[in-house]
Each structure stands twice: as C-alpha cells, then as structure tokens.
C-alpha cells in the first residue's frame, strides 16, 4: 500500500586524504610511521621507473607490445601493501608494481611482455596469479579463491584488480553476485583509469560511479582518489580487515588516470584531448607524495637521488637476468599442458621435434 522511495542500505562512500599539492586532511591522516611512508614512496618510484624501463625495452625491440601504467602507481602500491604473503593477489594485466611488491623477480615481469610463458610462472611461495588477458575473467577467480579460504577456515583475503572498462563484462557481475551471496573474504579493486583503450568511462556505463555497482550485489562500495596513496591505503586496509574478520567482500573504485598510451601499439591522440592529460599530470600520485614527504622532512634531493640510483640498479639487474634467459626451447609447449603427456601429444611432440631438426631450429627466441 504505498509509493515510496527505496533506500539502498549499504555503505557507499568517497574517500580522499592527500590532495594534489601534497596537503593532508589531518582528520583522516592514517598516521603511518616514517618507514612505511618511505617504503610506499620507494615502491611507487620503483613502479614508475620499471614502467619507463619496460617502455624503453619495447622501443629497443627487447620486448613486444607493452601496456604501460604511468599515473596508476598509487593504487598498485597502496593496495598491495595491505596484504600479507598468505593473502592472495589476482592481477589484471597492468600491475607490475604489485608484482614487484609481492616478490616477483623483475625479469619474470619482463618475460611476460617478451613473449615468454616464463613470465606467467608464478614463483613458488607467492600466492598470486599471472597476468590475465581476457578482461574481467579473473574476477570469478578472486571469488573462488576467497570462497576456498572461507571453506577452509583461513583468515586470509583474496584481492583482485580490474579496469573500468572490464566492469561491463558479465564476469564482473557474476563474480560479485557470487561473492555477495557466499560472503567471501574478497576485495575487488576497480582501477578506473578513465579509459578502456579509446572508450571513455562515461560511455562505459551510465552509472555516475563504478563504486555504486556494489549496491546491486548488496555489498559495501567505496570510491577513492586513486592518485592518493593514503586514501587507497586506508580504504583497502579497512576492506581487508573486514574481509579477514568474516565481514564479507568490498568493492573499491580507485579513480585515477592513464597518463600514457593504452599499449605501445596505441595512439591516444586519436581519441583524447592532450589538455585533459595535462590536468591529470598535475594529479600524479608521485608528485603529491614526493611533496608530502619533503614537507614532512622525510625526503630531500639527496635522498631522492640515492633512492633512484638504488632502484635503477635493481631494475638493471632485472634486465640483465632477462637478457640472459632469452633462449627457450619451443618444444616445451607440450610439456606442461597435462600432468602426464598423453600418447597422442607425445607423437605430435616427436613430429614437431623432427620438423625443427629438419628446419635447423632447436632453441631460440
């Protein structure tokens, strides 16, 4: 007997703590200790420099098409830092910083873009998944891992990343539906970088925010300034703690910007205004965090230079390792498909081997 407004009864918030000038909202300051702040900075800087290096390697022909991440460093590092090694991280395809933090060797990260399955060989002991190319298809896996944790009675969390564009895929919907119903310890991070190749966020869905999609699944949602590492850190810490305590899943939308091309095969001038990019360049998470640390007296030119040198050395070592491992045996495409290679595949492997011998190819890249 009524005509009344329905109020959706779930937490849906927006959070920003550190503005683009590096000024902090004192009331919201998570008061991280100096070491943590410096580590956050070092990791974001590493992500930036690694990204630059991968771009350079693409131009040098050392790797193939590469999907750079410039501008998205904060969401990577500030989310990853909330996880323990027992937690799981399920990446999309633009999370090199997360991988680095989680302990992936740099040359493994490079190997993916170099065209080597070795780049998907998740090192033993690291509870992560490799790059997932079909967008959104990793999200049901996040739910599945978290669900398994819950069934097994673990106090761990599964955290996954997805792009703004990928939220339109059915997999996104199904993953969150299942996560809500089974109340699994999962954190779903949307890296809203405003673009899906050439398709702008506003044309991806008519919803004003991506965070509000959480309401459709009866779970909490939060939108954060995705260039503000402190806001991201706070929001993710809360979501992880809630999940760990049995409070169920959270959807986090981190609003950031891809400052560069979609991949090295892409020309963003075809579809976006350079002026918009300029606006977002000022919101670069590295700039504001650098300023914040300097204002706090934690950073100066000298320390910055030392840090960069150290990082570059690490990356260079990764490149060396990468270069040293480029000879692969194409015949091993039969080796890992099944635990035991079936007879028919053994025969095909022999056929391939014979062909390669005739063709004079044995190993190479």
């Amino acid at each position, binding site marked *: 007997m009524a005509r009344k407004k329905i109020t959706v009864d779930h937490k849906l918030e927006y959070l920003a703590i550190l503005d683009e000038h590096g000024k902090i909202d004192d009331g919201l300051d998570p008061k991280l200790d100096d070491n943590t702040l410096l580590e956050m900075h070092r990791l974001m800087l590493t992500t930036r420099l690694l990204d630059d290096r991968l771009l350079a390697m693409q131009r040098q022909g050392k790797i193939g098409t590469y999907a750079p991440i410039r501008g998205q460093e904060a969401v990577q590092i500030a989310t990853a830092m909330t996880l323990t090694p027992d937690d799981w991280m399920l990446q999309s395809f633009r999370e090199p910083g997360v991988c680095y933090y989680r302990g992936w060797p740099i040359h493994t990260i490079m190997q993916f873009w170099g065209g080597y399955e070795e780049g*998907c060989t998740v090192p033993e002991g690291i509870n992560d998944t490799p790059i997932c190319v079909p967008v959104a*298809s990793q*999200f*049901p896996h996040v739910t*599945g*891992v*978290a669900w398994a944790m819950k069934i097994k009675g673990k106090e761990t969390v599964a955290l996954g990343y997805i792009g703004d564009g990928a939220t339109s895929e059915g997999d996104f919907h199904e993953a969150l539906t299942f996560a809500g*119903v089974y109340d699994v310890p999962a954190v779903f991070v949307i890296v809203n970088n405003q673009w899906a190749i050439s398709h702008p966020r506003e044309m991806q869905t008519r919803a004003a925010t991506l965070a509000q999609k959480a309401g459709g699944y009866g779970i909490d949602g939060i939108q954060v300034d995705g260039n503000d590492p402190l806001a991201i850190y706070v929001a993710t810490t809360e979501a992880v703690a809630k999940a760990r305590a049995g409070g169920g899943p959270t959807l986090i939308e981190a609003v950031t910007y891809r400052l560069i091309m979609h991949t090295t095969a892409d020309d963003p001038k075809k579809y976006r205004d350079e002026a918009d990019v300029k606006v977002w360049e000022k919101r670069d998470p590295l700039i504001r965090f650098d300023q914040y640390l300097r204002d706090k007296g934690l950073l100066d030119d000298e320390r910055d230079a030392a840090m960069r040198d150290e990082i570059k050395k690490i990356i260079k070592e990764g490149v060396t390792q990468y270069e040293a491992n480029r000879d692969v045996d194409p015949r091993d495409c039969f080796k*890992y498909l099944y*635990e035991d290679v079936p007879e028919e595949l053994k025969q095909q492997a022999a056929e391939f081997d014979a062909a390669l011998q005739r063709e004079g190819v044995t190993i190479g890249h």
Partner: protein
Amino acid sequence: MPSLNMVKALNLALNEGLREDEDVVIMGEDVGQDEGVFRVTENLLKKYGRDRVIDTPLAEGAIVGTAVGMALYGMKPVCEMQFSGFAYQAYHQIEGHMSRYRNRTRGRYNMPIVVRMPFGGGIRAIEHHSESREALYAHNPGLKMVVCSTPRNARALLLESIRHPDPVIFFEPKAVYRAFKEEVPDEPETMPIGKAQVVREGSDITLISYGAMMRPTLEAAADLTDDDGVSVEVLDLLTVSPLDTETLTKSVAKTGRAVVIHEGPRTCGVGAEVVARIVETCFYHLEAPVRRITGYDVHFPYFAREQAFLPGADRITHAARETLAC
C-alpha cells in the same frame, strides 16, 4: 555388487569422491537441496553439508570461474552444468582458464576440475536440452573429454575424473540415465582416461561410437551378426580426447572397414577426427571408405521430430552393409 542405473552409479562416484578427498566440492545449480534436476547428487548435501555441496546462483560462467579460483587454492571442484546446452555461458572460462592455467604457469597451478554435463537427445526435452557438442571440448587443447555409456563405466570414469589432476569435461548421456541397470562393484573402481574399450570382438568391420549411441550401435552389431553373419567389432571410445588411436588402429587394421557413429553434428565432429586418424594410421589396411553416421549439420530438432532424427540401429546397419559391400 548392486545393480544400478546410471544416475545412481554417478551418485556413487560423487559420494566416493567427496568421501576420499576433503578438497573435493560439488557445485552447481540445484545440486544441493534439490539433489540435482536428475537427482545425480541425491543425499550428498545431507551427508557432506553446505561447504562441500554447494547450490550456486544461476550463472554458469561463475560456476566454472569460481571453480578455477578454488582450484588455484588447491581444491578439486566438481561442477555441474544443468544441461550441456548451457555450458556455452561458461565457455570463456573453460577455454580461457580451466584448459590453460597449468600450461600458462608451467605447472605451478593444476586445474583438477571436473565439469559434468548431461548431453544428447531422446528425452523429449525443450530446445537447448538435447545437443551433443563433445567436439567443442575435444578441439580445445588442455582438456580431457570423457563420455560414459553405461552405469558401470559412468561410475568408474567419474571417480577417475575426480581423482585426475587435469581438467575433465565429463559428458553424461541423459537418454541412458535411467534406461537400464548394470552391476557396479561395491569397492571403488576406476577406468583409465584415454582408453577406448573393445566391447565386442569381431573381424569383418569395426563400429566406433560412444555415449547413448552405443546402444543402437550394439543393436546394429547384433543384427549384422544374426542377419548377415558378419563378425562385428565394436569400440566404445569412452574418452573422445585424447583419442585412443592405438585401440582404433589395432581394430581397423584387422577389419579393414569402419563406421563411426555419433549424435553430434557431422562437420568437424569426433567422427571426422576418427576418420582422419584411421587414414593416418591404417590407410593401407582400409578396404572401404570409412562412413559416418551422425547428427546432421542442423540444430537438433524439437522433440516431436527427435526420434526420426536420431541415428538408430537401422542407419548403422545400412552403413555397415554398404561398407561391407565395397
């Protein structure tokens, strides 16, 4: 040795799988409280509880997708697609992840998942409930594609599939579900994946089939022997991929003549593969072209027309006689 129909035999294997390995979970639409629309999961929720026998929301993609996630974490999900005609909603997860994860990560992550699905016609069901598309999965690298045909091999192959470290698509011929009973050993019994079975020995011609089509095939074999005095060998493929080329070759090298029978569409079907293998391995033994008796390359008709559509013993004997006349 109880005498069971296929539904009960499959239920037995699921029960054994759940009992012997804590990591095994069953998941699907209506598999718990309702015990499966065909009752294959009868009693399992009661016995193993909600964490092991999981009623999921209605989304096949997420059933397989979350199963992939569970497998990453070390569990062994046995998923049910209510009908094989709804597995297309999950095809991107099957192809993109379930069949690839082991290879992609060079063995770091196994995918010990079974995806069970009832397939095939003959039960007067509505559209999308009667098709046979085993070839889709046979063509997909990284999957094992198993098809049972009797209660006993259903139990043995399903239990083996659950124990298997790699992903298995497990097709259940629903026309056989309650069609007949067979003695099934009390003790857990398995049969190897990748092995065909000679279910009738003979020397003049080989009939090759699997699933529900085994029944008209065996009927045709009996007719050919009784009426024509022909010695017929019959193979039940049981695993459609990887195909047991050895058993195939041995038989056709002996008989020199073969007919392959299946319900699914002809073009690029399992029959085509069987013919190609025979040509590759026993061309010089062949005395006649290998014939295919299959579903036609059309959509499976609605059920008023299905009995006429489905290959029966007549079509098989006819093809065999033509082959023998060459």
